[in-house]
């Protein structure tokens, strides 16, 4: 690091700078930022959730609950205590430079729509950008994300494709599965060949993009519901991977009839 201009003694050897606070770009900075944010929230009387450390909850005396979720510098606030929410806004404005953007519409590339029925989240814009990037804007939409009879494996004789391009494409698809459980399995399948992608894998990945073109507006609807019962549906295939004969787990959990989490994951050991 170079000494900042205007700093008195010049080029004294064997001197070091002692940092009083973190600088942008240091690897300690994110933690320092989150520590500061947590402290401000604790002063407000919020409690950090142990299940998800970026979630802060406060129960006010009037039995209302206020929740705050933070992702780096994006914050969502919700709850049933309007007064507390305003107080929180003022308190945050005092400590940080913030801007209130009103009702939640867009968060980390996920579009949020409110209606009488409930809340609908989708990634339509993200898919449109993905189609543009892959040059598939005018392609014929596919009905299914994968050919049902296709088994992907390590095919040695196939021609290799650009690794970086493949990894970027699959990375974008992984992010997309935040609102698209229908492609979760196929995305997990194509992401198993990141280290040595071949033509057949790229074709499979592009087929997902083609499928997405036909199903742009799909997303997840959270309906208003009285009960909050938890349910889970689980399943597994048997030796589905032709590379190492491991099985794939699949499960989805529903809260009050609404899909909240899901996963498709190859099991860790061969069973």
């Amino acid at each position, binding site marked *: 690091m170079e000494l900042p201009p205007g700093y008195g003694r010049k080029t004294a050897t064997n001197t070091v700078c002692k940092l009083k606070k973190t600088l942008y770009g240091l690897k300690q900075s994110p933690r320092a930022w989150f520590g500061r944010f947590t402290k401000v929230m604790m002063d407000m009387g919020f*409690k950090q*959730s*142990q*299940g*998800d450390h970026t*979630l802060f*909850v406060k*129960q006010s005396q009037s039995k209302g*609950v206020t*929740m705050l979720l933070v992702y780096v510098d994006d914050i969502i606030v919700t709850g049933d205590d309007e007064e507390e929410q305003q107080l929180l806004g003022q308190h945050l404005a005092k400590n940080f430079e913030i801007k209130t953007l009103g009702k939640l519409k867009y968060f980390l590339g996920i579009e949020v729509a409110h209606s009488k029925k409930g809340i609908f989240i989708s990634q339509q814009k993200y898919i449109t950008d993905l189609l543009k990037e892959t040059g598939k804007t005018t392609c014929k939409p596919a*009905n*299914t*994300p*994968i050919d*049902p009879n296709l088994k992907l494996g390590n095919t040695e004789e196939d021609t290799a494709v650009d690794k970086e391009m493949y990894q970027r494409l699959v990375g974008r698809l992984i992010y997309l599965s935040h609102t698209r*459980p*229908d492609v979760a399995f196929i995305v997990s399948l194509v992401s198993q060949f990141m280290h040595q992608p071949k033509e057949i894998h790229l074709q499979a990945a592009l087929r997902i993009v083609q499928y997405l073109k036909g*199903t742009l507006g*799909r*997303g*997840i609807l959270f309906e208003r519901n009285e*009960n*909050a*019962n*938890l*349910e*889970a*549906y*689980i*399943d*597994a*295939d*048997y*030796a589905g991977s032709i590379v190492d*004969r491991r*099985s794939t*787990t*699949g*499960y989805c*959990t529903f*809260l009050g009839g609404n*899909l*909240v*989490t899901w*996963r498709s*994951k190859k*099991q860790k*050991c*061969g*069973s």
Partner: protein
Amino acid sequence: MVARSSAEAKFRAMTQGICELLWLKIILEDLRIKSDDPIRLYCDNKSAISIAHNPVQHDRIKHIEVDRHFIEEKLDSGLICTLCLLTRQTCRYSDEGAEQQIL
């Protein structure tokens, strides 16, 4: 080690599903959403459910012993109940266009 039956694979899936449910339960408690009903876990494999309920240890299932004790503990505490869901073995994506109810 190799599973000789799909029940074993499904059993592992059950464990992973339960782990996710336990995590969700912690989050819900933080959000002050309480539900005393046991969590319903649907699985389409009868033998996997039977293994979960039956405390007898067989030779065949020795690879999944840890998972078995984990599930049994949750079942005994009344946190989770398992239900069998009969499914037809059909291809989820038909070529004529996938009809999906979730989306």
